[in-house]
């Protein structure tokens, strides 16, 4: 295989060819990187991307919930909404049986009841 005889011609041909070969190699590596990123993205293997998308989604939801008028951000009537969207009445209204006298008592009223209840153990008013 012979290259052009002229030294100058030789060099520029060589340079051109070298540059072309280098571009070839570079383009081939670019395709590799692009293809790998594509695969990573499509298979959801990029953890950071997944986490970011999830966070964006959650913050959008939270914002929607806050701006939703039916939730009543701060105080709506007697009920305050906490971050889980639950409401708790100011007076606990679970009802149970007093273990002393057997009456049905509201939880929020149990302490005052016990004060009276425990003091009447042997009273004739006991039910």
């Amino acid at each position, binding site marked *: 295989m012979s290259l052009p005889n002229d030294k100058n011609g030789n060099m520029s041909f060589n340079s051109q060819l070298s540059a072309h070969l280098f*571009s070839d190699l570079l383009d081939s590596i670019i*395709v590799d990187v*692009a293809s790998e*990123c*594509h695969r990573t*993205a499509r298979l959801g293997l990029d953890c950071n991307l997944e986490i970011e998308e999830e966070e964006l989604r959650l913050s959008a939801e939270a914002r929607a919930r806050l701006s939703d008028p039916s939730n009543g951000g701060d105080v709506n009537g007697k009920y305050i909404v906490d971050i889980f969207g639950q409401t708790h009445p100011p007076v606990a209204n679970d009802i149970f049986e007093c273990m002393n006298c057997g009456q049905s008592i509201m939880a929020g009223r149990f302490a005052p009841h016990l004060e009276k209840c425990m003091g009447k153990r042997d009273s004739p008013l006991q039910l």
Partner: protein
Amino acid sequence: MRGSVNRPPTPEAEDGRQDQHLSLQEIINIKLVESGEKERLKELLRERLIECGWRDEMKELCRSFVRKKGKNNVTVEDLINVITPKGRASVPDSVKAELLQHIRSFLGSAAL
């Protein structure tokens, strides 16, 4: 050659290539591949590009494109188009020089 069969003669080694004249470039490319030098050069380039952070830059470009377009709407073509201009422009001079030197010395040895 039988006259009843109408087809161009099968190219043979002695005939040389009838329709294709392999350019010098193609011949060199074949030599490059056959000798394994092309693979070695590609590995060298890949290593240098990783070391200097070029690959990370390209991956970040891809990631932000994917974020914008949505991961299921992206094709490999898209990503190639995204990173090619920046990719070609941001190869460090030292890396390019090193590779060109290797290529030129291969060309020199191949000419002998």
